[in-house]
């Protein structure tokens, strides 16, 4: 019922700046879709176009079965949670929650019933008579949520709703949000620049960059099979390492020769490497795919490097290294690994999990099969 379709949606501002360049996205009913990307990538603009707060320059947006391009926000049957909560400061919490119902001329008793239900659900029943000023950040956040829930809309739109909370609260609220979605089962579109939120919350993730949708898929798929270098680098902390070099073949085997001379043997060639022979490419390796010991059967893929910084984090150890030619990368090692600053070590790559990208910011990932 409340599917949301975006078809070639564009946003071009009066000054000629194209914020969104033809985004197409299908969001299924009851799905939790997270749109993620760095600031300025057009994700908020996309959300605001769905909400009707921003005029659509091209394409169509469909909510349910209705094209809503020219439907006023109030008639789109959506609710939105804002980054700054946008609670009405002159109204009490109750009035804030009841406002939209009042405008829709619900009977008083019905309003009261709904508001108290929602307040109960969000554990803010005792705050109903207070003004937003008197609430803590977390409580305000709940009121903002409540204001969206109380209307029982076809879709929730979240615009970075957690960014104003402190780190600890953000994590707990994140979990609550997920539980809430499971309970309400309403289509949700959630915009964030925080990849952790995206990974944890989304049924599917939509990664945007430069006004374009890069990849839409389930979180783990995006993590494991990023379509391009941008998506790969965006998800994961510390981010994926990119090492420059070129593909070559030696002894009948495909190898990746790093600029500093180290050679990494590549595996499972489906034949797609052939066209990239002797071309400048980028090898993408996630930090956790480095080890100090060679992997079984992969003896010939070490990089001679120097340790610059070691950050023991308890559950793991982040090691900042540079190769001989000065390419920097981070390895994520077992916390008990004996490694220290200024050590010269050879780092081994789990080549099965490495990716090769075309050069450039959004260089295509050539190691995942196209289908």
């Amino acid at each position, binding site marked *: 019922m409340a599917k949301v379709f975006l078809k070639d949606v564009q946003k071009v501002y009066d000054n000629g700046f194209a914020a969104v360049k033809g985004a197409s996205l299908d969001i299924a009913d009851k799905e939790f879709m997270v749109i993620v990307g760095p600031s300025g990538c057009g994700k908020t603009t996309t959300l605001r176009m769905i909400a009707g707060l921003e*005029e659509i320059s091209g394409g169509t947006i469909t909510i349910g079965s209705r094209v809503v*391009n*020219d*439907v*006023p926000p109030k008639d789109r049957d959506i609710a939105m949670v804002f980054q700054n909560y946008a609670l009405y400061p002159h109204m009490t919490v109750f009035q804030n929650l009841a406002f939209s119902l009042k405008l829709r001329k619900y009977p008083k008793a019905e309003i009261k019933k709904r508001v108290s239900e929602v307040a109960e659900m969000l554990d803010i029943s005792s705050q109903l008579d207070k003004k937003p000023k008197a609430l803590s950040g977390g409580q305000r956040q709940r009121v903002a949520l409540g204001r969206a829930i109380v209307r029982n809309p076809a879709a929730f739109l979240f615009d970075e709703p957690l960014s104003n909370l402190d780190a600890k609260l953000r994590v707990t609220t994140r979990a609550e949000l997920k539980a809430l979605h499971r309970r309400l089962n309403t289509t949700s579109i959630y915009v964030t620049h925080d990849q952790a939120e995206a990974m944890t919350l989304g049924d599917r993730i939509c990664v945007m960059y430069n006004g374009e949708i890069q990849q839409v898929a389930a979180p783990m798929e995006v993590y494991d099979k990023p379509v391009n270098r941008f998506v790969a680098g965006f998800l994961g902390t510390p981010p994926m390492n990119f090492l420059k070099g070129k593909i070559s073949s030696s002894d009948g085997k495909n190898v990746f020769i790093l600029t500093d001379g180290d050679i990494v043997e590549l595996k499972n060639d489906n034949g797609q490497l052939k066209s990239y022979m002797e071309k400048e490419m980028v090898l993408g390796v996630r930090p956790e795919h480095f080890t100090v010991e060679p992997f079984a059967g992969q003896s010939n893929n070490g990089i001679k490097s120097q340790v610059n910084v070691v950050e023991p984090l308890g559950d793991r150890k982040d090691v900042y290294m540079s190769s001989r030619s000065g390419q920097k990368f981070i390895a994520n090692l077992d916390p008990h690994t004996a490694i220290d600053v200024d050590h010269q070590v050879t780092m081994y790559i789990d080549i099965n999990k490495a990716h090769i990208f075309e050069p450039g910011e959004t260089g295509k990932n050539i190691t995942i099969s196209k289908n």
Partner: protein
Amino acid sequence: MKDLKYRAYVKRTPYLFLAPYFCLVCIFFIYPLISAFLLSFQQTNGPKSKAFVGLSNYSFVLTDPDFHKAVKNTAIYAVFSIFLQLPISLGLAMLLNTAKDKTKGFFRLIIFSPNLVGQIFVGVIFSVLFVPRYGLFNRFMQSLIYWGLENRWLENPTLVLPAVIITALWMYVGFNMIYFLAGLQSVDKSLVEAARIDGANPWQVFWNVTLPAIKPVATFVVVMSTIGSFQLFELPFSLLKGEFGPSSSGLFIVSYLYQMAFRAGDLGTGAAVGWILTLMIMIISLTQIKMSGTLEEGK
């Protein structure tokens, strides 16, 4: 179809909100403005007599010694209101700034209170206070400095302007003080403390920290005072009982306009004065804004 209208509706909204302004400004401002502009090239006398006289009204006004006098009086008044009234307001604001809230409120209330009285009332009240021998002001001066009991403030050409300035001082000091107080609140206290620690004396602190901080407010107040000074009319008008003082010593630009248009019945010349005055105000206030360099900040 209703859906399609929404965009147009949103685009139209600001114009709808501004519609009352547009309507009123066209009817009661632009139309009269154009009439006044056309009028300034005409001489009129009753409905039947209307004659185009070209720039004669302007050339007459610009060479009229009375107009020169009015400009001189207005300029003197403006200078005094900026260099006497505003420093006093600022001084009072600084005296009050660090006071306790209640004390501050009390003095603020008192010093602002003259603004509650209309200019027309203030004028008549002060015309009685300035009465020689019996007037409160004359008696006060007499007992304070043994001078001024017999001063004919409103009859002596050299004293009329001071009388207007004193009356205006009483009226407006409190108003500007409130602006300065607000400006002083925005002065960063840590900056003052830092300057103190750096060894600045109070004067240096005022000059180097306080004054730059209240510059936007000061600019605002100076511009508003200047515009106000150039539009001065009702106060001297009622103070001098509808006249313009002996030897036109209480003649200001707007009173000159009023006299031309409504006493002498020469609406055309009056309109010309109006346009000259408008030009003067614009040039002066824009220069002030430019000079203070707050044009960009001032939105």
